[in-house]
């Protein structure tokens, strides 16, 4: 088989730009723009609360807010503790990436990048990770230290045939 078959086309720069939207944990991919907690709260109440509840709790779908004491991480053994952004998510960049690509559930793609910064800021605020006065942009979002980050470890099962 030759190195290359010469099948397929070089994509237009427009196509790559339109689709190249994934955000990486170091912040690569984050767009220009900015959004603040207070704007985020307004958008959240309008567009998200119906599914995720007041202040990110008690909605029909995923619980988004809630912290636990620093040394509490009961998710393996006990039930009744929802995993939230504040107590379980390892990276803040995931929040921007996921909201922009997937939310609101029925009309993803309707939020502007500023809206997404604002919603990310508000949800981080609800999780006690940002003050009410905070704003976020491409520089500041990746800086946020997520409480659960240190807990994430790569898969270690395949090193052995024992059950892990």
């Amino acid at each position: 088989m030759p190195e290359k078959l010469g099948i397929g086309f070089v994509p237009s720069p427009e196509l790559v730009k339109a689709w190249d939207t994934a955000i990486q944990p170091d912040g690569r991919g984050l767009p220009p723009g900015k959004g603040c907690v207070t704007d985020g709260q307004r958008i959240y109440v309008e567009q998200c609360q119906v599914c995720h509840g007041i202040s990110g709790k008690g909605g029909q779908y995923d619980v988004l807010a809630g912290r636990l004491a620093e040394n509490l991480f009961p998710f393996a053994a006990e039930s009744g503790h929802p995993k939230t952004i504040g107590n379980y998510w390892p990276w803040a960049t995931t929040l921007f990436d996921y909201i922009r690509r997937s939310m609101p559930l029925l009309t993803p793609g309707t939020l502007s990048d500023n809206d997404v910064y604002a919603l990310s800021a508000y949800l981080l605020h609800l999780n006690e990770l940002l003050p009410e006065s905070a704003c976020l942009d491409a520089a500041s979002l990746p800086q946020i230290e997520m409480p659960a980050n240190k807990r994430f470890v790569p898969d270690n099962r395949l090193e052995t045939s024992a059950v892990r």
Partner: protein
Amino acid sequence: SRRRFLQATATGAGVVLAGQKATADVRRVGPWASQYGERSPFDKVNRTISGNLQHESETPQQALSGMITPSSLHYERHHAGVPTIRPEEHKLLIHGMVEEPKVFTLHDLLRFPQASRICFLECAGNGKHHFKSDEKTTPQRLCGLISQSEWSGVSLSSLLREVGVKKSGSWLLAEGSDACLLTRSIPMERALDDVLIAYAQNGEAVRPEQGYPLRLIVPGCEGSMNVKWLRRLEVSDQPFMTREETAKYSDPLKDGTVRQFSFVMDAKSIITQPAYPLQIEKGWHEIRGLAWSGRGQVAGVEVSDDNGSSWHQAQLQSPVLDKSCVRFGLLWKWDGKERLLTSRVIDSTGYTQPSARELIAIRGKQSLRYHNNTMTTWRVQSDGQVFYQRMD
């Protein structure tokens, strides 16, 4: 059913004595050939739809045979429903840390060497009902999120060679074109191994709910890695830490850590017959079920009818393939006494399927919302009724 049989004979059922006038035995021709066949109207075997968004459907394991799941009964898990994609408009973009980004149409992909493989797909959440279900629970409910097809398409490695992955390229992002643009990260080592860009499922085009027209197939790995409606692959030097590999599909462990990228599905088996809601008669039966391992091949399956005190080697149907489901069977005479039936699989790496208690002790019960590969037990009552027996 002896009674039913004698009745059927007595009332005729199309059968008459072969006498001099056999006019009662008239047989009429049926419809002739058709363009695209359908199953019998008497076959009512269906997926069960579940989830608060109806975002899942479960394969009726207890009603199926062999190792191929009919495409119409392949389990589903959607994050934003099933998109409608016109094949002539669909494109696959490969870009990022590559020498030359490329976009491929379906027509382009058909020109590459075709690769096919039979392998299972299993949702990481297959087994999540184990510890919440009562005794009136079917194999479909307990284990309906695994199915198997022959997938055909292009080796991802062929396409990666075409674009030229840069030295720094160590991870790959796969993105679907469903409404939520679902994404997952895949290590480059794995991407260059046995990953397929599938355009066909069991011979014909991939089904809409399975990713029509293109699905990424990562054999042995949890369902959501096998990105449906695939439109984009981006090469990078680190994982993207998408929501589906951080907030979801990760495993909190008892030591306070969270196991991430645990996408290889451990070995699992389940008895699909006899199982709830069957009632069996005394005498010989085949205990049958499914076994698989994302780590490799099924090496053997053992069945116990006494709650694990003794184990009997089951027969495996052939062929037994890598990262592929196999149907197992054990001929078994039921003596009318209460029995606890269980199966466990051992794979080609030596990994043995754990009991519920064993895996709960290692990982914690709440951790097993994902990646629960524990054994399943069925209780055969002395009246022949079979019930699910929780063992946690």
